[in-house]
Every structure is written in C-alpha cells, then in structure tokens.
C-alpha cells in the first residue's frame, strides 16, 4: 500500500470530461472572484452605523499592520535599489549626462520599480499573512460563527483588509520612491556620475502631470489586486490542509497579476504621453 493511498476511482475521466471539469472549475473560480470583489466593495454601503464603525476601525488597524510595520523592510529595499540603479548606469555609460540619469531614475524608479516592488513587498509580507489568517479562520469555523452572529464576513473581514492594502500600497510607494531617489542622488554624486543640480534638473524635466494619474492608477490597482486575491483565496479554504496551498496560490496569483497589470498600465501611459518618453 502507498504511504498516501488515494481513493479508488471507478473509471478514469476521459478527455472531454477533463476539459468540461476544467472549464467548470475556471468558471466557478471567476464567478467566486467576482462575488468576493463586488461584495467587499458594496459592503460599506450596507446599512448599520455600528457595523460601519467597527469595519472602519479594523481598516485603520490593517493600515498599521500592512503599511506602518512594513516601513523598515521598504526602507532597506528602496535605499539599495536606488543605489544599485545609479551604479549600473555609471558602469554602462560613464559619459551619460547628469540630466539623462535624472530622467532615467524617474522612469525606472518612480514609474516602475516603486509601485511594483512595493506591491511585491506587500504581497510577500501581508498577502501571505491575510490568506493564511483567513484560511485558518475558515477551517476553524470562525467565519461561520461570525455569520451566525449576523456579522457579514465581507464587511468585517474582506473590506477592512482591502482598504488597508490599498492605502498601504499608495503610501509605501511614495515612501519607496523618495528613499530610492535620495539614495540614487547621494550615491550618484559620490561616485561622480553626476552633479546634484544636473540630476535634479533631469528629474524636474522628466516628471509630467500624467505621472500623478499613473501613480494613482498603478498603486490603487495593485493594492486592490493584492488585497482582493489574498482575501479570496484565504476564504476558499475548506480544511486545515488547504491553508498552505491556498496561501501559496494567493501569493502566486497576486505576483503574476500585479506584474501583468503594471505592464498594461505602463503601456497605457506610453500611449497617453507619447514617444519619445521624456
């Protein structure tokens, strides 16, 4: 007998059955994802003054856990990412004008690395925590217990986490950008890549009003995706053995979807601002 004996199947499924099963699975997953998102976004508009107050307090706590407590990790990564980029630029083209280095820092750090790296940090730190916590809650009947007391899980559990992650990604991205640019400036001047004034001129020249739109769309979108997917897969747990599996799925899906979303928004930004990119 195998160490992990499997249930004997009466008849192995055929190709058509397999395709049908997978199609139904994909449909159910998409429908479930939509239900989680719509339910969570509609939650604050449900009646109940006290329920609204409780959910809002939980959202503030979530911002603290997801945003404030991530500051040390974000600081370390931002400082070294900023420094590394300016060193690489100096190694590749030592004669690069200071203004161009400033512009490249805006394009690479502010527009791309800051939001995406922040989303990756939040996914690895809080996405796993949310999916695991919700998975454990589900397998310990905590979610059913809350429902039995008339407490909406989407309002009490999902909505505060969604808000917490979105606000955290918005704030942490700004923090990441500031630290990475400061680090790039300091290291750039130190290794002689450029003068401080030239970098600043390039930086000011590169920034366009559309950058604010890009920042808001990217950060709010990435925060929404990470929070939504982490909560959804956490709530899909049916038993304790599924907790690590769903947590892992939540992280993988969050990372893949975040990278694709980031690229899509960048493409949209390119089409909006036009070429050549300033």
């Amino acid at each position: 007998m195998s160490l992990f004996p499997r249930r004997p199947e009466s008849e192995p499924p055929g190709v058509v059955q397999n395709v049908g099963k997978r199609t139904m699975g994909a449909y159910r997953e998409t429908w479930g994802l939509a239900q989680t998102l719509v339910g969570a976004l509609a939650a604050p508009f449900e009646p109940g003054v006290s329920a609204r107050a409780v959910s809002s307090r939980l959202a503030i706590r979530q911002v603290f856990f997801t945003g404030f407590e991530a500051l040390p990790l974000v600081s370390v990564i931002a400082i070294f990412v900023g420094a590394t980029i300016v060193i690489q630029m100096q190694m590749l083209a030592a004669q690069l004008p200071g203004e161009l280095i400033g512009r490249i820092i805006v394009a690479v750090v502010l527009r791309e690395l800051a939001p995406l790296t922040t989303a990756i940090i939040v996914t690895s730190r809080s996405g796993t925590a949310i999916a695991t916590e919700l998975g454990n809650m589900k397998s310990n009947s905590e979610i059913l217990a809350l429902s039995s007391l008339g407490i909406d899980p989407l309002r009490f559990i999902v909505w505060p986490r969604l808000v917490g992650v979105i606000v955290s990604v918005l704030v942490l991205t700004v923090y990441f950008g500031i630290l990475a640019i400061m680090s790039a400036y300091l290291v750039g001047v130190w290794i002689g890549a450029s003068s401080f004034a030239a970098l600043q001129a390039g930086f000011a020249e590169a920034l366009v009003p559309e950058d604010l739109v890009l920042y808001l769309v990217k950060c709010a979108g990435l925060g929404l995706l990470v929070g939504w997917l982490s909560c959804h897969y956490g709530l899909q747990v049916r038993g304790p053995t599924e907790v690590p599996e769903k947590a892992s799925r939540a992280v993988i899906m969050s990372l893949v979807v975040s990278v694709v979303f980031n690229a899509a928004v960048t493409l949209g930004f390119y089409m909006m601002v036009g070429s050549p990119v300033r």
Partner: protein
Amino acid sequence: MTEIPRSSRRAHGVRGGISLRGVTFRYPRSDVLVNASLEIEKGGTTVVTGANGSGKSTLLYIGAGLLAVERGAVTIGGHPTDPVHPSELTRRGVRRGFVFQEGGLVANMNALANVALPLRYHMDLIGITLATVEKRAKSALERVGLTNNEMYELPAYLSFGVRKRVALARAIAIEPNFFYFDDPDVGLDPKTAALVHEILCGYRDDPEVTMLVATNREILVDRLGVPGYVLLGGRLLERKVPGPVESTRNRA
C-alpha cells in the same frame, strides 16, 4: 442557583420559528439532507440525534441559514435565509446564538472581545451603548463561570472547556431568539455540563426562544424531554418523547 438568561426583548419582525421545507444538501461524496423537512414553532425546542458523520452539524448550519441549500426553502422567524448577507436577518429582528462544537471563537480576539463583538457590531440595532456592551459581555462571561484573568486571554491559551463556555457566553450575551447548540456538553467537566444543561432548560422554557440542539448525549436528551428527529442517510425521522437516543448506526 445560576440565573438563567432570558430573551428580554420581544422581536417584532419575528413571525415564526425555524422551518426547513423539502431541503436537499449534498457534499461531493455524501448526501446530508435529501428532500428533508423540519418545523419548529416559535418558542419550541427540537433535538436532533444521529450517528457520527451523519450531518447533524451541517443540519444546524442549514437551520441557522449559514449554508446555501441545493433545493428547498429555509426560513427563520418567517424570513428566508441568505448566507451571503447574514446581517439581513439580524436587521429583521432574528438574533441567532450558535454554540459551535469547537467554539468557533475569533482567534485574534480575547475572550471578552469575542463576547463583546456581536454586541458592538449590532449596537444600533440592539439599542445599547458602548458602556452597556462591556457590562453585558462581562456579565455573560461571569454567568458561565469565567475568571477575570481568563476574560483577557486569547482563545489559544484557554482550555477546550473554557473556550466552549466563552462561546456559550457569546451566544447568550446577544439575547437570542433563535438558539443553536452543536454538541453543547461534549468535552465539559460534570459541573460545567450541568450548568450548560440548566441554561438549555431555561431557554427551552422561554416562549420567545426557538431552539435546535444536536447531540447524542442521552442525559441531555432526557433532561430536555422534547420531541426530536434522528438524522439518517439524509432523512429526518421523527423521534417521540421521552426516549433513548436511537442506535442509528444499527439502523443504517
């Protein structure tokens, strides 16, 4: 003598008891209910017995409107249930108290916070102040014999019996008009079990409280002395009062 909590507020939106009509509910590899019906009139009590794994807990979840059924209708207090929006029933005056087999306490909240949570969440619906929430939560915990130290502990640091008492306190604090007990006295010491039996008998005699109890403990079935059902192969068979818990395993 322990003071028996009573449902103090008459809920105006409640027009009946618990009703399951033609309900079918299946797990992927087992049928829990097949076209089953169960009626408990307002203020009534029913005990459900059945072999381990027959689906008693699931029946309670369905009866409390926590699970969506494949077919049939479930109403509580005359209102259809909606598992996706559980607060809807509360807004209509249905206050459910559910004592889960394993407690079902929120792991990152201490015992006091667990009991206070539903009160705080529904403060406006119940019509109480924040000060009353704490008073009522503490009073419910004291009623089930929790010490002051235990009130501030997380569930993970409490014994199984104490966790179950906290779950009971959480359910009674909300002054429910619908009460669900899933194996309420299993794993408890004789003194605590007697306290739980006493509380259950108190609710059985309260005309405002409709109660559904799942158990296999003959002592509790005898003590409650009410008619009930045996859950067997997805069917609900009526059981007369008083009588021993039928050996469903043999009948299956």
